[in-house]
Structures are given as structure tokens and as C-alpha cells.
């Protein structure tokens, strides 16, 4: 369960909370970029990161991202991570404030 999944940071969503939107295999998910934030926050847009349980833990290059994704697919871990993200969204919807949740 220590495996991270590569994602590309596409948009800063909340500068104060250090949150950004990441594209993980086509799924958009809000993640914390606190662990990789060392300079200007905008500089992270377009960068690839290894994302573990919703936190960008290390910046990687695009080639490394592709190779890691392939290895995760072979292990079934990529699908597992994407399903877990979907579960997380479902958990939030369960509480009766469904209208606030973005699909």
C-alpha cells in the first residue's frame, strides 16, 4: 500500500491549503502539493508527481511517470488506486450533501 501513482498537476485550486487538481490516468482528483512545494506554486503546473493517498510526494519526469504507470498496471495497482479514488468520492456523497459534490 506504499505505492504511489503518477499524476500530472494541472491547476492550483487552493493556494492557502496547498491544494491542486491532478490528472491521474484521465481522472481528475484534488491533491495536496505541500510535500513538493519548494518554490513558486504556479511552477508546479504541468509537472508530474508521484501521488500517494492524495499527496504529491515526489516530482518525477514524464518518462519515469510512464514507466511507473506501466509497472502499476501490470500489478493491478493502478486500477486499485483509481477505484480507491472513486470510493473516496462515494464516501463524501453518502452524507446527504450530495448537491455540493462535483461529479
Amino acid at each position, binding site marked *: 500500500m506504499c505505492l504511489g501513482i503518477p499524476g500530472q498537476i494541472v491547476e492550483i485550486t487552493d493556494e492557502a491549503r496547498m491544494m491542486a487538481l491532478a490528472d491521474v490516468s484521465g481522472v481528475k482528483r484534488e491533491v495536496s502539493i505541500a510535500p513538493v512545494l519548494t518554490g513558486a506554486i504556479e511552477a508546479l503546473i504541468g509537472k508530474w508527481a508521484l501521488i500517494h493517498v492524495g499527496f504529491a*510526494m515526489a516530482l518525477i519526469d514524464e518518462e519515469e511517470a510512464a514507466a511507473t504507470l506501466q509497472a502499476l498496471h501490470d*500489478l493491478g495497482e493502478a486500477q486499485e488506486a483509481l477505484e480507491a479514488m472513486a470510493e473516496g468520492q462515494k464516501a463524501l456523497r453518502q452524507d446527504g450533501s450530495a448537491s455540493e459534490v462535483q461529479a
Partner: protein
Amino acid sequence: MKYAEEFRDPKAAKALLARISTLADEIGATKEKPVYIMEICGGHTHAIFRYGLDKLTPEGVEFIHGPGCPVCVLPMARVDECVEIAEKPEVIFTTFGDAMRVPGQKKSLLQAKSEGADIRMVYSPLDALELARRNPDREVVFFGLGFETTTPSTALSIQQAARENLTNFSVFCNHITVPPPIKALLDDPHIRLDGFVGPGHVSMVIGTHPYDFIADEYGKPIVVAGFEPLDLLQSVLMVLEQLRDGRAEVENQYARVVPEHGNPVSLAAIEDVYELRPSFEWRGLGEIDHSGLRIRDTYRAFDAEDKFGIGYAAGVRSVQEPEGCACGAVMTGQLKPTGCPQFGKGCTPEMPLGALMVSSEGACAAYYQYGGARAAEAAE
């Protein structure tokens, strides 16, 4: 060599395997007198079985599957405590999916959920934080589980909850650390280990220096490795080279992701929020000194142990493993999964008796999942 064809670069894999074979001969490793290499991380265990690396490498190289699968080393008592917290009517209990099927003494979290407890699988502690914001009249508890890769996520979430003055969010902290169980295994006179393949993503957080004692004090090689099959083969080769040369060093095969000093933000968050417990219980390994974390007094408001009076704060409660379960012996490399009388009979991934069958990172589940392909291969 049929597995080798699945590699992204079969040629490179074959070249590495040939070099591993030559080295094994050079150091005199045979089936009767193998070198024992422990891969610490459960992700590596999974990859070794997925690619059949233990079959592709020479018989003189034996993999011992280490304790690096968090749900596999989770004692039953911790699961019971999770259920106890989760069954409180005011609680929304949140957890990673991995922990749902781990058997407790009476039930798993999955069973408790089916009986009506409000238990939700989440992807991230950030999801639990969001649930707390949206449900101010409920107590949202997150099950903090895992090694140093995962610990920063709960530390940063607790810091965020403190900034927002969220009073209905807490973490049931059962985080553990990698180096102490390795030391415990090295101190055990019944266990022989010649070298280690070190965890990749744990090291991305803590860096490579926490393993210095393995080389300096115990004289064993350790190579931090990535998760691709070629990374693993390369790392085994590096361990064997150290053994041939009589060296014992910490080497970093995964430098493209693992910085020597780890991730400073994550380490600072861990240091701010957590402190070491005097000791912590590991399934199969028993109590190990300074191997678990608890929440510091400054963040006491976010400590589920303190809030509900459950867990190590309420005194250690050890629970016997189920009858016939040999997880402990398998975990320490003294028994192969197939040597357990319950393997594939009373214990399967669908109905696990022991924790090693629960997660794809557990040695038993890996044997079970990829065992079919192997039996067919052996019959060829």
C-alpha cells in the same frame, strides 16, 4: 524464461539475469547453501511474484519476504479497537480499503459495516477531513495505518485540521516505522539474512540514512529499489556484487525518486505531529521497541485514542492468533506460505484467516494468486 517476455525490455532482463547467475556461482550460492535476500516492502513482494522473479533468478538466490505490508503486521487487537470506535453511533469511521477485510477477533470492519456501523472507505485522509467539515455534528475518525510513506499524509491532515479548528476530526494512529523490525529480525539468532532490497517509497520520505545501521552495525548490504522488474533485478545484482566484494553499504538504485535525505516537508510534519511509542505490537513479530508512532500532546485534540479511551493509551491488549494460523512463522521467513496447514484450505483471499492472505502485498496472497500459473509451469 517465458515470464521474461513480459518485461518492457526483455533483453535487459536477460542480461541482468545472466549476470546474477554468474555472480551467484562466483560467491558459491547453491540450492543447498543459498544467499538469503529479504525484500522488505510488500510492493516488492507483489512484483517479485507477478513477474516470477524468484523463479527466474538462480536457485542459489532465495527471497525472504519481509514485514513491509502494513495490514499484514496489524495485530487483531487493533482491528477490534477500530470496530469498537466505528460502532459508536456518533462516529463516521474512515479507512483505506486495504484494512476492511483484515479479520478481528469477532469481526472485520467490513462485517461491522454490513451490521450497520458507519464505516467509509476513503482514498485519502483528506477525504476524512472533508467529511468532518461537512458533518459538524458527527465525529469523523480516520484509521492512520501504514509506514513512513503514509505517515506524512495523516500528519499534514492533522496540521490542517488544527489550522481550521476542526473539533470533530481525529486520527486513530497505528503508524509504524520500517527500521526497527529489520533490527529485530537481524537480532534474531534463528533468522539468517545476507542482504536486503530496501523499500522505494518509504525511502522517498525518509531517505537512505536510516538504514546505515544495517551496513555499519550488522555488516549487511542493502540496496533501495524501484518497483519495476528491472529495478528489482538490478538491485539483487547490486546486493550480490557487495557480497562478492565483501562490502556492506547502503546503495540507492532508485535515486531518480529517492533523495538521500528524503522529503523535508514530510519529515518535518511527522516530527511536529508524532512521537515514538516506547514499543508497539506487530503481528507475527511481537512487541518491538520504538517501532510505532503516537500523536504528540500538542495535537491531543486530534487523537482518537485520547478521545475515545481506546488503543495503546488504554493499555496493551494482546489477542491470540486464530488456531492453526502460521502468519508469524511465514512473516519471519521460517515457513513458506504453502507450508501452513491452513493455506488454500481454511485461509483464502476470499475468506482470510490470517493477515498475510488479505492484501496482494502479503506473501500468502501472492503465492495463492500466482501459484496456479506456477503449477502449470512446473507440469510443462
